[in-house]
């Protein structure tokens, strides 16, 4: 256990640079987005007032109030999120492959540590999950900050003040990142962790058997997909929608846990007996 914590701490230190850069990047671009949208809006109002000789009220009437939704649904806001997601997906592979490649092959040291090798797997998995949750938490905080800056920038008659939480729930994509309930958080990020575990197993299959391992990894991914889809498929095709959504989700969660366990068992075996430096 102590070694697992040390390894996790170690992995987290290694990811921290990326994490801080991503946070900085997200905040910067999203703040630019806030200022940009406000500036664009003010420009439109101004030009209506100067060029079309409208009164402020007329201009407001024509353009409508500015709400934070304009910022949140813009690429300034979503772009950095997509990039962060992409970076984390990339890191899922990097976190393993960097141990083998390059001048210094750290995998030797990792595999020779006097600790259960599966701890390496767990530490990397936990690092990815915690890093992701850190990013999500930071994004939520950033969102609140951006919203209050936005509210401060837009003067009263033009501002349509909106609740951030409502804005989140109105967008399917954003509401997936910030689920409304604890169940939702567990489901989304728990499922995410399971998928990371499956990808790790696929990577270890490749690292153990190389080319043949890629075939095995693809096969494993297909089996896992089938298992995870099975609750929905069974309900639709065999039971004609007999199950309640809650029951389906529960079965799905059980399947996901099962998949995670299988991944751990396979990865443990691979790390102990099959891995190659």
């Amino acid at each position, binding site marked *: 256990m102590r*070694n697992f914590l*040390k390894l996790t701490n*170690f992995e987290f230190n290694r990811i921290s640079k990326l994490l801080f850069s991503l946070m900085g990047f997200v905040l910067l671009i999203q703040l630019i987005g806030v200022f940009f949208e406000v500036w664009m809006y003010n420009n439109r109002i101004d030009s209506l007032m100067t060029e079309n000789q409208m009164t402020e009220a007329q201009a407001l009437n024509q353009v409508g109030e500015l709400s934070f939704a304009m910022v949140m649904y813009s690429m300034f806001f979503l772009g950095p999120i997509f990039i962060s997601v992409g970076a984390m997906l990339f890191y899922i592979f990097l976190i393993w492959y960097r141990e083998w490649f*390059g*001048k*210094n*092959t*750290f*995998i*030797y*040291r990792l*595999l*020779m*540590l*006097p*600790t*259960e*090798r599966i701890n390496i797997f767990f530490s990397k998995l936990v690092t990815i999950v915690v890093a992701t949750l850190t990013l999500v938490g930071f994004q939520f905080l950033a969102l609140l900050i951006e919203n209050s800056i936005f509210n401060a920038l837009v003067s009263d008659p033009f501002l349509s003040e909106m609740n951030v939480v409502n804005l989140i729930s109105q967008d399917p994509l954003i509401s997936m990142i910030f689920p409304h309930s604890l169940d939702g958080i567990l489901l989304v990020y728990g499922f995410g962790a399971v998928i990371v575990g499956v990808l790790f197993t696929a990577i270890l299959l490749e690292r*153990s058997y190389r080319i043949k391992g890629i075939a095995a990894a693809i096969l494993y991914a297909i089996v896992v997909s089938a298992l995870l889809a099975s609750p929905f498929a069974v309900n639709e095709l065999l039971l004609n929608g007999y199950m309640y959504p809650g029951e389906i989700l529960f079965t799905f969660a059980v399947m996901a846990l099962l998949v995670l366990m299988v991944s751990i068992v396979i990865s443990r075996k691979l790390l*102990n*007996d*099959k*891995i*190659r*430096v």
Partner: protein
Amino acid sequence: MIEVNDVVKKFGRKEVLKGISFTANKGEITCLIGINGVGKTTILNAIMKLTPINSGEILVDGKKVTKSTFEKITFIPDSTIMLPGFTINEAMDFMNDYYEVWNQERANEFLKFFRLNPEDKISTLSKGNTAKTNLLLGLSLDVDYVLMDEPFSGIDMFSREQIAEVFTTHLIEDRGVIITTHEINDIEHLIDKAVLLDEGEIYKEFNTEEIREEEGKSVVDVMREVYRG
């Protein structure tokens, strides 16, 4: 004792180890000799469970290798296996974090003996100093067995001399050492036992002092007989 019993290893269809057996005793320096690509490194990797074997068995003090074995045996490969961004200090801290048997006093001795600067980043070290750092990190573990892969290859003469000197000191004494080399000259006087390998097979395993005493032959003489006869 490290026992390698009838170990077979295949890469695809190619058999790189064709049923290798030998032993290495504690307190002795055993040298695996053979030209490059005869499977010396693979043997060391297999002992440390860094590569799977197809059949056979490897025992350390009569037991299979598990996580606790790594407090008893260490492997020093011929390349750095620490994060390149680490300084030597950070690398030592890392070792200290995970190994009960890490011996910082000994590590300090090595720093002095090899004249290494602990503030130096590993990625900036010369080849010779990289090899010395590897040695420092491996040999500062109070383990019974040490595996070294080609510790003399590709480094300057004075570094080679210094490294060979380590074998004559208490820094190695009483441990069991397996060392691989394709160039015996640097260490001919130092080794207790030679294991000659070629194409995945062991040609001869002998005690160096015995062969000098009984047959008046040097290790190189025996190698000549084996590889050219």
